[in-house]
């Protein structure tokens, strides 16, 4: 039980003022602008948008500044803001096959139609500190290859090629309205749509750990990255005033499809199965982790055995993936619990007294 405490206003105000001062840091050093955070800390911005569950780079930059770079605190601020927004509606599902890819790689097909595009990646860097960045300096221009033929080139999903040979399970569309955990409390067992919504806003570290556990053998499902793509897609929505759909914006997303080995089960033939990750912004590690965990959670519908692994346990994964829920509960234990603790103290004292008395009694009897 949490009993409210009163008082401390003066100390709290002073603490907040000090926080503001510390947030600013040394005034002799130039202050960060939101545009600087948005443009130069863009992957932090993307993470805050994806786990904050709200796509708005400027707000994410503000949240990062306000939280002194504590990304979970920033995500908290975005989640709180999100709840104040009236909901205008839902978009049509984004068409990731029409994405203008800035990155698109496949670990399974070397010669994929549309080509492999590395994009602005950390892959193949040496992970050595670059001291040139410590000194201010001009950035060399990235090479540009103008090829009008490539501009219009479509980049179909890699999975489509395996589909043709029935070597991989298909993903057929339907007209069902997906459940929304921001509108109705999450219920278990959850269908895949609800699981994916939970995973796409889940903590990256939590998903990474779970995904890694499947690779190390806890419900191993032999995942390959069939395709990873990052780029802009249009967001289209039905406009009630008009009676037709219009593109209302454009967002960057990361999509990962895994191809997983599957020997077949009582209900399914031997074929490749799939895991899916789709995340706001450029969040590659998160998207791959999401796909692995999505696949692990599908054991029941594929008729696989429950290996008792954490990543297969829907209740465990979905109930502990949200870092705002987690941090809220975890951090509340540092707030005043004096009455709670007082009662615990009383209890321990009375138990001890009873135990002591009993000991005395036995001693006396023994004598």
């Amino acid at each position: 039980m949490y009993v409210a405490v009163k008082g401390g206003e003066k100390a709290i105000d002073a603490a907040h003022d000090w926080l503001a001062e510390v947030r600013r840091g040394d005034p002799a050093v130039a202050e960060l602008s939101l545009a600087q955070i948005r443009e130069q800390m863009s992957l932090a911005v993307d993470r805050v948008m994806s786990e904050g569950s709200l796509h708005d780079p400027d707000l994410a930059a503000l949240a990062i500044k306000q939280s002194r770079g504590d990304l979970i605190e920033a995500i908290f601020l975005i989640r709180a803001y999100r709840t104040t927004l009236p909901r205008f509606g839902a978009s049509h599902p984004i068409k990731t096959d029409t994405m203008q890819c800035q990155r698109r790689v496949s670990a399974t097909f070397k010669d994929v139609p549309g080509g492999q595009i590395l994009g602005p990646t950390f892959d193949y860097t040496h992970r050595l500190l670059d001291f040139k960045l410590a000194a201010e300096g001009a950035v060399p221009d990235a090479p540009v290859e103008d090829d009008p033929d490539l501009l219009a080139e479509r980049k179909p999903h890699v999975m489509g090629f395996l589909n043709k040979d029935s070597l991989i399970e298909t993903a057929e569309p339907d007209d069902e309205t997906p459940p929304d955990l921001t509108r109705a409390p999450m219920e278990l067992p959850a269908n895949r749509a609800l699981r994916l919504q939970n995973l796409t806003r889940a903590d990256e570290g939590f998903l990474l750990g779970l995904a890694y556990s499947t690779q190390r053998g806890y419900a191993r499902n032999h995942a390959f990255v069939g395709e990873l793509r990052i780029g802009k897609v249009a967001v289209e929505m039905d406009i009630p005033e008009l009676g037709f759909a219009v593109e209302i914006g454009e967002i960057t997303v990361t999509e990962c499809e895994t191809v997983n080995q599957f020997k077949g089960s009582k209900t399914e033939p031997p074929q490749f199965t799939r895991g899916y990750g789709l995340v706001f912004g450029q969040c590659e590690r998160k998207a791959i982790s999401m796909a692995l965990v999505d696949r692990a959670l599908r054991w029941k519908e594929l008729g696989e055995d429950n290996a008792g692994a954490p990543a297969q346990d829907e209740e465990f994964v979905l109930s502990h993936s949200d870092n705002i829920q987690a941090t809220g509960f975890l951090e509340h234990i540092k707030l005043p619990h004096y009455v709670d603790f007082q009662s615990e103290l009383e209890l321990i004292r009375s138990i001890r007294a009873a135990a002591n008395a009993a000991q005395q009694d036995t001693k006396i009897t023994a004598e």
Partner: protein
Amino acid sequence: MDDQTKRKNWMGLLAKSAPPTMEELCAPLSATHSFDWLRQPETGGVMVRGRTGGTGSAFNMGEVTVTRCSLRLKCGAVGHAYVQGRDKAHATQAALVDALMQTAQAEHVEQDILQPLRQQRMQQQAAIQGRANATKVDFFTMVRGDD
């Protein structure tokens, strides 16, 4: 192209354009045209959906901030806007352009605003595409020799 498709296209273009560019191009319009609000600009959220496996059942990803408004010109033409972000001026300019595109001034608006926006958009896309092309990679597998 029918009227609905045309309108769909310009509304999409206006929504996807950057607020500073819109400001620059639309400033003369905002100064010369008066209108009545049917709906004042308001910011809200739109739930973005994806599809399982890219092609399967829909699921909810997360929201995007959107600002919308509706206005009526003195001549009676009604303009609507739904634009990404929280910029009320952007939404107002988009609704104004939408309304004007349904009047006799459509040709001018097309030339002075939509064409430059389209041009800028194509340049931005080409810039990304050009960089992407330069990082296009051909992996090849090595054949292991037996000797």
